[in-house]
């Protein structure tokens, strides 16, 4: 199946000379949740802005379901809903009016029943007649999502959707996103919350300094780059790793009271059995142990710093 979004050799240089994107090529698969990670100023929002038609590219092409987003902008934009990073809302309009306005802007016939469903799904129905200025930050964020969903898009861009949102609300939004994906909507989200990407995404893309440095299935990425660590809580402390344990990838921490062994969990031989025997021979005893797997955040930090 062809990708729903195909980005080819996209570059963007602002008038100030800042090169925000440099020859970015990326395909987004139909129906997936794609998380775009990157530090501040990496080019995430610029990339989204160009795809959605808010910014002009300096070079390159974006196809949305085969439609060029410049030459055939009507077909391309009709498919996209955008929730921007900032809370841009009409302060004095009611929730109902602003969401209905968004639907009209996208050329869709008025459908009060659908708008009601969207507002109910986002727990906004009770506030449909409230002016937006009277809503809390979390509610405004949901209004932005309702506006983006008002025209029944097949692709939804969520630019930092849960920034400044409390944990409970964030989890509620994840549920909404999952429900949307279940209906076939392709979702592209940028986030600073690595746990969000880890929780939600099918695929992860990492962008840094305007370049895509990695695109991978989340599970494969975790497997490929994820390290597993065995932590041994020692009885007493050791000052240095004994020479007979030099073959093992060991590190001391917590003032010598903890020994950390890093290994590849997918390898045929992890070396754990041998390590434990070697420890016994060296007279190092421990009272507890646990294992941890590196998180997506660890992977992200190591990629961006590389």
């Amino acid at each position, binding site marked *: 199946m062809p990708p729903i979004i195909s980005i080819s050799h996209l570059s963007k240089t602002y008038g100030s000379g800042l090169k925000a994107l440099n020859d970015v090529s990326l395909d987004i698969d139909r129906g997936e949740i794609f998380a775009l990670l990157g530090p501040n100023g990496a080019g995430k929002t610029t990339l989204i802005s160009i795809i959605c038609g*808010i910014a002009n590219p300096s070079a390159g092409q974006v196809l949305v379901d085969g439609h060029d987003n410049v030459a055939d902008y009507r077909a391309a*934009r009709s498919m996209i809903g955008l929730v921007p990073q900032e809370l*841009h809302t009409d302060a004095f*309009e009611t929730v109902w009016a602003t969401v209905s306005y968004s639907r009209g*802007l*996208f050329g869709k016939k008025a459908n009060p029943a659908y708008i009601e469903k969207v507002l109910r799904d986002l727990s906004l129905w009770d506030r449909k007649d409230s002016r937006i200025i009277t809503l809390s930050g979390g509610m405004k964020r949901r209004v932005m999502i309702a506006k983006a969903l008002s025209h029944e898009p097949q692709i939804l861009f969520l630019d930092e959707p849960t920034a400044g949102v409390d944990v409970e609300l964030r989890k509620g939004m994840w549920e909404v996103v999952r429900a949307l994906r279940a209906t076939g909507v392709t979702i592209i989200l940028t986030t600073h919350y690595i746990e969000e990407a880890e929780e939600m995404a099918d695929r992860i893309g990492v962008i840094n300094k305007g370049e895509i440095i990695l695109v991978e299935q989340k599970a494969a990425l975790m497997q490929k780059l994820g390290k597993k660590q065995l932590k041994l809580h020692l009885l007493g402390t050791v000052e240095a790793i004994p020479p007979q344990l030099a073959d093992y990838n060991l590190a001391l921490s917590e003032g010598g009271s903890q020994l950390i062994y890093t290994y590849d969990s997918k390898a045929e031989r992890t070396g754990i059995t041998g390590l434990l025997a070697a420890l016994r021979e060296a007279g190092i005893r421990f009272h507890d142990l646990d294992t941890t797997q590196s998180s997506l955040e660890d992977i992200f930090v190591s990629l961006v710093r590389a």
Partner: protein
Amino acid sequence: MNHRAVRAIYLFEMARTWRTLLQSVVSPVLSTSLYFVVFGAAIGSRITQIEGVSYGTFIVPGLIMLSILTQSVSNASFGIYFPKFSGTIYELLSAPVSFFEAVLGYVGAAASKSIILGLIILATAWLFVPLHVMHPFWMLTFLVLTAVTFSLFGFIIGVWAGNFEQLQVIPLLVIAPLTFLGGSFYSINMLPEAWQTVALFNPVVYLISGFRWSFYEISDVSLGASLGITLGFLAICMATVWWIFKTGYRLKN
């Protein structure tokens, strides 16, 4: 043509007018009524007739034009500037809406408000001075043309403005002086000859002259010149708006 988008923008903008009725309609009507009272009744009663028309009656077309020009520019510039200021412009730019459709919605709403306002002021004028419109067709033509043209001009100012001060600069420092010096309160024939020549470089003279002609068949310049200048300014504004959307000037990064 995304006619639903045009309708959505138009109704959204009109809704703002009804929400701010005091500021949008009542205030300009009251201000213009004060002009009628002060210039028409109080001072006007001591001024002789101008080309066979009493002074109070003479200034009616000029006062309507004064409101139309300032309100058209103000409504349209604010209509597009505010989404830029608040950031909600992202929605318009990411929607399947052509520049023509966006302009039709914004300028259509701004012009509609001005026309409604002009007609209310005209009705109000009837309360203060004896009035007759000899050429209703031309009166409406000039009313609509001026409202549309200056709404387009206001749209351009709204796109260009980078802050609220810039938004006010053109209406206050350009439009208002040109309107006051454009024959709202006098015929340019009453000016010294040299100033009559200078006045002919003021485009507002042609608008007011044509509009006044449609009421009383008295004018400072010919009907053809009035119509030509108005259409010429309209064409310049349309070309500028087309260029703005083609290049994304101050709208897109």
